[in-house]
């Protein structure tokens, strides 16, 4: 009964004219940035954050969440029509989506990705609604060692899932943690690494760093070689999938929903990993795996459903434990904190209107996205035709404005540019930005939990408590095994090269 009255409270909040308008604005902007390659939800949420300062917290969170899951819908359009992922979680959709478009089936590909996204998104919101309160109740029993271990697991997962050597991911995570130490030490109150700068006393801002690492760095990377986007279909027809398309896609959609939701709950999994998993599972269990990659509808339905299910699933740990499971969630955590709300086990009890209002708005937003996406595909195609040499100055202008508007401090813009150049160089040297940013966000919480745990007087406290011991062992396993694997693989490569040389 409590559950239904809470849900009614949520809908009461989400269905006010103001919240409906901002939800619509959020999903519209989300879809737009999902369509445009080179600007993702992380940079957009960072950019919009300052414009939400004057809003009520619930309205602001409803809009920013709308941007996040809206981007998942939009990303598929670019993947299918241009063969360039609009955002990272749509990479797999390119494989079969673009092939479907080449076979003259762009319409059904776009249609099934919209319907799949809707079903996956809706099912995972139900999961979020049921699981978050349970997890929050469980988390009330957590102490600093458990929270430390959980954050460590999140960082280990992000590092483990990085492309390239784990060592590089580890270095980026360590660098992020080191940068998070800049500013005031929350326990002793003294300042560290500030070079007597007033701006740095408050620590390194997450938003300017995120905009630099993901917005400016992306622009600089794209500037290296401006490629003319080749749009395959300028008129898309037959968006509604046929009965056969539905019969082929329904189980991939169901499986994609479950994979997307449950995998994204794992700290660090984000929205990209579930899409790869959903695609791999479909290919493995398919009766005709050889058709994958040639334009099969299951190859579009599964990953597109999974990324939307993952968007809601990754909010479980944020809302119930206060821990971001991905970079996007880290920025959303920043939004909560800016509005004076600390997500975590007490969020549901302290701010029921915000929690249930946000969840109800996600149902509404999903319906809006379905209605919005199908008729507006023509508009998205037109937007895709904007040349990049006009698009990138706009992205830079918005980033400039967003960083400045945070504190009306020009040094925030400078920080953004510095981290933009840093992010660009790190990409060139094959280091990923995700562990860096997640470590920067988790750093202060991680240090507090670490130092509070040690105050108990036992340096082995992390291994004496069962939950933290298990989580730390899993983290160590994730970090150590690839190191040995890399070494043994590399050693084999050297031996092979030497043998060939001989």
């Amino acid at each position, binding site marked *: 009964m409590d559950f239904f009255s809470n849900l009614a409270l949520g809908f009461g909040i989400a269905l006010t004219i103001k919240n409906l308008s901002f939800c619509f604005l959020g999903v519209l902007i989300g879809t737009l940035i999902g369509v445009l390659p080179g600007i993702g939800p992380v940079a957009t949420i960072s950019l919009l954050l300052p414009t939400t300062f004057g809003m009520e917290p619930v309205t602001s969170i409803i809009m920013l969440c709308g941007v996040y899951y809206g981007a998942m819908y939009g990303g598929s359009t670019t993947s299918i029509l241009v063969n360039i992922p609009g955002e990272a979680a749509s990479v797999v959709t390119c494989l079969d989506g673009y092939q479907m478009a080449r076979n003259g089936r762009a319409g059904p590909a776009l249609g099934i990705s919209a319907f799949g996204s809707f079903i996956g998104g809706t099912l995972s919101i139900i999961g979020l609604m049921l699981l978050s309160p349970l997890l929050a109740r469980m988390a009330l029993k957590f102490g600093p060692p458990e929270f430390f271990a959980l954050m460590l697991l999140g960082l280990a997962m992000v590092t483990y899932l990085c492309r390239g*050597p784990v*060592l590089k991911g580890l270095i980026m995570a*360590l660098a992020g943690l*080191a940068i998070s130490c800049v500013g005031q030490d929350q326990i002793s109150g003294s300042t560290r690494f500030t070079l007597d700068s007033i701006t740095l006393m408050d620590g390194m801002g997450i938003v300017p760093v995120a905009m630099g690492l993901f917005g400016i760095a992306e622009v600089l990377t794209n*500037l290296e070689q401006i490629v003319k986007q080749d749009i395959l279909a300028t008129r898309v027809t037959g968006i509604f999938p046929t009965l056969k398309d539905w019969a082929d896609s329904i189980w991939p959609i169901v499986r994609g929903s479950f994979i997307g939701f449950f995998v994204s709950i794992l700290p660090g999994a984000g929205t990209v990993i579930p899409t790869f998993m959903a695609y791999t599972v479909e290919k493995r269990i398919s009766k005709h795996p050889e058709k994958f990659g040639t334009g099969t509808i299951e190859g579009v339905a599964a990953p597109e459903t999974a990324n939307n299910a993952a968007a809601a699933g990754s909010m479980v740990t944020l809302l119930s434990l206060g821990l971001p499971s991905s970079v996007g969630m880290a920025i959303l955590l920043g939004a909560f904190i800016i509005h004076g709300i600390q997500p975590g086990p007490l969020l549901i009890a302290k701010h029921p209107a915000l929690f249930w209002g946000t969840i109800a708005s996600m149902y509404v937003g999903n319906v809006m996205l379905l209605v919005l996406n199908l008729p507006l595909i023509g508009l998205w195609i037109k937007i895709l035709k904007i040349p990049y*040499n006009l698009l990138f100055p706009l992205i830079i202008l918005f980033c400039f404005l967003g960083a400045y508007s945070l504190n009306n401090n*020009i040094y925030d813009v400078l920080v953004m540019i510095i981290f933009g*150049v840093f992010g660009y160089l790190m990409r060139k040297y094959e280091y990923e930005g995700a562990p860096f940013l997640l470590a920067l966000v988790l750093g202060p919480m991680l240090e507090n939990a670490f130092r509070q745990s040690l105050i108990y007087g036992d340096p082995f406290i992390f291994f004496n408590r069962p939950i933290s011991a298990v989580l730390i062992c899993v983290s160590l396993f994730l970090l150590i095994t690839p190191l040995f694997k890399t070494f043994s693989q590399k050693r084999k*490569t050297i031996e092979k090269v030497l043998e060939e040389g001989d």
Partner: protein
Amino acid sequence: MRQREITSSLFWLIVGLILTIWSATYPLGNLAQPGTGFLPLGLGILLIVFSTVLLIRAFRLGAAEKEKAPMLPERWLRLGTTVLVLIACVFLFEKVGYLLIFFVLALVLPLLAGQITLRRSFIFAVLSAAGVYIIFVWLLQQPLPTGFLGR
């Protein structure tokens, strides 16, 4: 590839050394009561260890790996100029004002990217500056510095 790996691991080695030395200047405390410098010191030491491993790997494996083609000078020039323009705009933003800075940014950046005429770029710059004014100043009431134009 080898040169890149060596350069990046040397960079991180230097960062690790600076972090370790700098952290040691803060109170370290002990295991029961860690001080301000405790965690950064640990991070610095780990950075030194991991970057050294990467450096050794780069020296051992480098010869076997293929070198990537270096980036063309004009691309470096394009990127370098873009970054310099951005930094110049940061330092001039409050003095010159948002309207002129955004106009200049929207005029210069497309020209740097190429494949656009000055006329089109000019029109784009006027529209962008006007758009920023309408959306951010007029509608969203963002307080942006007006510089000498505002006086």
